[in-house]
């Protein structure tokens, strides 16, 4: 079994209302240096068998990310 971590983020240039709302709250709390907050997802999974990274990439293409609005990255921390 191999731990694979998939990160799904809103594409640059796609409006991220969740990131904007979080940024507004951070600014309100006094974190004045913050900008460009974006909120995405981290998906962890155990994958058995051959080439877990390639399997995870296929999962991203088939389901985990919507390539109209999201980018993904596959990581095998090892």
């Amino acid at each position, binding site marked *: 079994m191999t731990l694979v971590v998939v990160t799904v983020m809103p594409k640059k240039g*796609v409006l991220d209302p*969740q990131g904007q709302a979080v940024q507004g709250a951070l600014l309100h709390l006094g974190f004045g240096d913050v900008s460009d907050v974006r909120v995405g997802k981290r998906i962890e999974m155990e994958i058995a068998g051959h080439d877990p990274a390639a399997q995870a990439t296929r999962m991203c293409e088939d*389901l985990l990310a919507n390539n*109209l609005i999201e980018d993904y990255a596959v990581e095998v921390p090892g």
Partner: protein
Amino acid sequence: MSATRVAVLRFPGTLDHESAARAVAGVGGEPVFTHHEDTALPGETGAVLVPGGFSYGDHLRPGALASRTPIMGAVRAHAAAGGKVLGICNGFQILCEAGLLPGVLRPNASLSFICRQADLEVADAGTPWTGGRDEGEVLSMPFKHHDGAWFGDPGSTRVVLRYRGENPNGSMDRIAGIANLAGNVMGLMPHPEEAQDPLLGSVDGRVLFAALIS
């Protein structure tokens, strides 16, 4: 002539199937509830209705998990053969995630769940879905959603309905409902099944159900 049989899809978390089925029956169609794990539509299905709700709890993305269930293969084949498919609210999200309609429904710009009556303008009178209404005519229906902002390439679709006046949810070009280029698949965020009875303020939703079974 027998009534047109309409497969009304049910996923875990579908909510609006009863009112949608009632609206199908109201225009003379025969609704048949159809389970998401079925691999075929009921025999002699003439049209498919994907009702609203929160299929799979909206997990991952609204409609994403429902769009990958076994029944959607049969819906895809039905649509490819020219059969009519209507998706309402979460059903619209499912059709986009399934690739039967272009684009995707994103969270409302306000991040709020919005529930209210809306005036919708007919933007394209050339599809079957608005039953002879002219461009610019207004249909009144309620909408209730958190993820109703359509995003995509407007050139890849036919915009059938737009929100009139102020954009309520950040949808691109105030889009409320679209059809595929062939015109046989339609999705909208507002709820035509809740605009069927004068007691509820509007019967303008009937036109879409009449189109579904014609």
